[in-house]
């Protein structure tokens, strides 16, 4: 399978189902790539897979695609591939790949079920930008007949917050859009803050849309709980020490990385929130404290 065919398949997946997580779409494409792959040896297969993941990262430079791809590769190859026949090995890998895909497709539902119990009746929730996982959580809470209000930040430069507000209105949840600069102003009114994540790093911190770090600092100052909801395939083997330690390939969108020469003129799209500001993380592996993330990562990767 050619790489541009792969990229087209990936884009088609995203277009066809806008609700799907980009990592899930990437993994579906990788599975298809694996099915159609023509290499003769296991090593060649792995080489092709790694290159495919790299191509997908270039298309969509989010952390989730990178982490999802790496986890997928580890999951399918973390089994005994001692069969003499290559096609048998490939079948085993495809089977495991489908199992992995099934598990992660269910992860968003699991997270939603875990988190919505933390939303009490009459709560005022603050969230940032547009996250499908947070939407699922709020959906579940609303289905549970809980009454709550949501404040969403506008989240410039792409005004993703307005899209989130529209989706929430469709669910009949009272929602109000606030400016990014108004987070400090609104913090005293809210009871809890829930945000999604693009990636969860080894230290227990999260990488998310720019503005999240600000919100976390404010909530810490006001002693409001700061919850992060993320699926487990977003766990990534990075360990940033501060904002500038996050690699450039995640900070900017893929198109900008390809076209622009001097990245200092560009504004980054994500920031890093350190674990000391996060109260709890809701994942499909359970409700974790930031220090437990490293334990889970060690279990996933070692």
């Amino acid at each position: 399978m050619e790489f541009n065919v792969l990229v087209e398949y990936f884009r088609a997946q995203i277009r066809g189902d806008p609700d799907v997580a980009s990592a899930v779409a990437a993994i579906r494409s990788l599975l298809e790539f694996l099915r159609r792959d023509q290499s003769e040896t296991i090593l060649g297969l792995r080489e092709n897979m790694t290159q495919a993941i790299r191509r997908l990262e270039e298309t969509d430079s989010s952390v989730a695609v990178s982490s999802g791809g790496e986890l997928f590769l580890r999951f399918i190859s973390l089994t005994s591939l001692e069969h003499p026949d290559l096609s048998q090995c490939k079948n085993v890998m495809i089977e495991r790949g489908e199992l992995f895909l099934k598990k992660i497709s269910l992860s968003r539902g699991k997270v939603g079920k875990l988190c919505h119990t933390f939303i009490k009746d009459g709560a005022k929730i603050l969230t940032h930008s547009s996250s499908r996982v947070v939407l699922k959580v709020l959906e579940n809470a609303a289905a549970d007949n809980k009454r709550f209000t949501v404040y969403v930040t506008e989240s410039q430069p792409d005004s993703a917050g307005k899209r989130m507000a529209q989706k929430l209105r469709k669910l009949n949840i009272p929602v109000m859009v606030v400016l990014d600069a108004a987070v400090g102003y609104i913090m005293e009114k809210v009871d809890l803050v829930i945000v999604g994540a693009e990636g969860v790093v080894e230290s227990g911190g999260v990488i998310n849309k720019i503005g999240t770090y600000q919100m976390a600092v404010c909530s810490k100052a006001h002693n409001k709980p700061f919850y992060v909801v993320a699926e487990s395939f977003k766990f990534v083997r990075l360990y940033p020490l501060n904002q500038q330690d996050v690699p450039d390939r995640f900070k900017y969108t893929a198109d900008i990385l390809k076209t622009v020469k001097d990245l200092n003129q560009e504004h980054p799209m994500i920031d890093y929130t350190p674990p000391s500001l996060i109260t709890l993380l809701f994942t499909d592996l359970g409700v974790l404290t930031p220090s437990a993330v490293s334990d889970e990562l060690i279990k996933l990767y070692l």
Partner: protein
Amino acid sequence: MADSDGRQVDGVNHATGKIYRLKLFFNNEGKELTKEEKQRLRKEKKQHKKNKKDDKGPPEKEKEKEKASVPAPSKPATQSPAHKAAPAPVHASESAAAAEKPAKSKAELRAERRARQDSERTSKHGKKEGGQQSASSKPKATPNELQPVVKRLPEHVQVDDPAALKKLAKKLERQQVRQIHSHVPLRSDYGYKVSLFSHLHQYSRKSPPTLQISIPATVIHPSIVRLGLQYSQGIIAGSNARSVALLHTFKQVIQDYSTPPNEELSRDLVNKLSPYISFLSQCRPLSASMGNAIKYIKKEISNIPSQCKEEEAKGKLQACIDSYINEKIILASEAISKYAIEKISDGDVILVYGCSSLVNHILCKAFEKQRKFRVIVVDSRPRLEGREALRRLVKKGIRCTYVLISALSYILPEVSKVFLGAHALLANGYVMSRVGTSQIALVAKAYNVPVLVCCETYKFCERVQTDSFVSNELDDPDDLIVTRNGKSHLENWQTVKSLGLLNLVYDVTPPDFVDLVITDLGMIPCTSVPVVLRVKNVDQ
């Protein structure tokens, strides 16, 4: 060389440093125990231990335990490493009994024990014994109350408790009982100790631990004596250096060792190592890395199959030690450098404290990889180890600045990262390192500068500590005396009764101040140390 009791003693050939065959035989009747008898005794002891494990409650089992382990010290040849963890109440009863009857000779003690065993056998229904049991029943009663049994602190952290000191002396003496002329000397404390740290030893460098070792016959191998002196005089310092020196010395010891007849190498060699380790800990308290290395060696020795020939076994052990040093120290530092170099970017200003072999190695490797950075070396009295680090880095060509720790808050706004070495990483995530490290981490946190600790996994230990008082090391207080312009003001500090000089060696840093720990397994947050310990235990 047999003495009147029919016991034999080993002789050291000082020309070659080899120890003659070591013929240990000691028992109640004065005749030699054969190999079969020893194995039978071992089986009996195992049975007693199993009974004790099944049934902790009834006092008769306690008495059986006492009966079983009381003959244990009198049969040191059959002591196995498992009995190192002999229950504390036994020591208590033994030493309490010993403390109260110091004048009795060995024969009388033996007769007493036999009488006690007979009486225990006759009263199996939990009837309390008569007067002769009252002394030992008291300490037995306490373990009954505290079920499960409270683990005692090791003797070295109870220096101000006379009972514990007596126990330590007894233990060292017991190691003497086997060989007449030799014993592990008990080093005496020096000078007034500050009250918070009075439970720790404080030795003077001017009184070396070898003063009391008798010249002709000693149970301690000469290279161990040399190593102990090097530790106590500070010639070998630094966690890695001490462990490597220890392992090399053990290789020498194993080389010179020869199994005595009627003994198994796997059991006898471990017993042989115990007085060495006591001696070394008298010279300077063992570090966590040394403790882990010793545990590894003891495990390897006891895993030697009994049908293995001596030369083959010795060769295997030497290879094990070599591979341990290679894997855990040398290769680990390569892996750590690889991860650490990712964290060093061009234009960085890196702060280091003291002299850590690992941190120096990382900086030299990063410089070789053409990273542009400069280093600030922070130093402190009285050791002034930073000068050694400065020398090594400048020799490489790295741009360095040198300050004392009092200038820390002045220099920190310039710093972009702090790299620290560690002496040990505790199970609750605390970092134990040279004194002054926690200060650096604290001030760095206040300035929002990331703190990175570099530590190999063999320095991880199961201990838990939240402060620097409970377990530490006190160095020679005379080191704090400084002579300037011909005048040393603190020279006569001992004459001033209210003055105490405190020369601490280690301190602990809480995990909140440490941003990242770089180990050979990868980069982990400080709180994940127990996970690594768990993973390591599963591997073994």
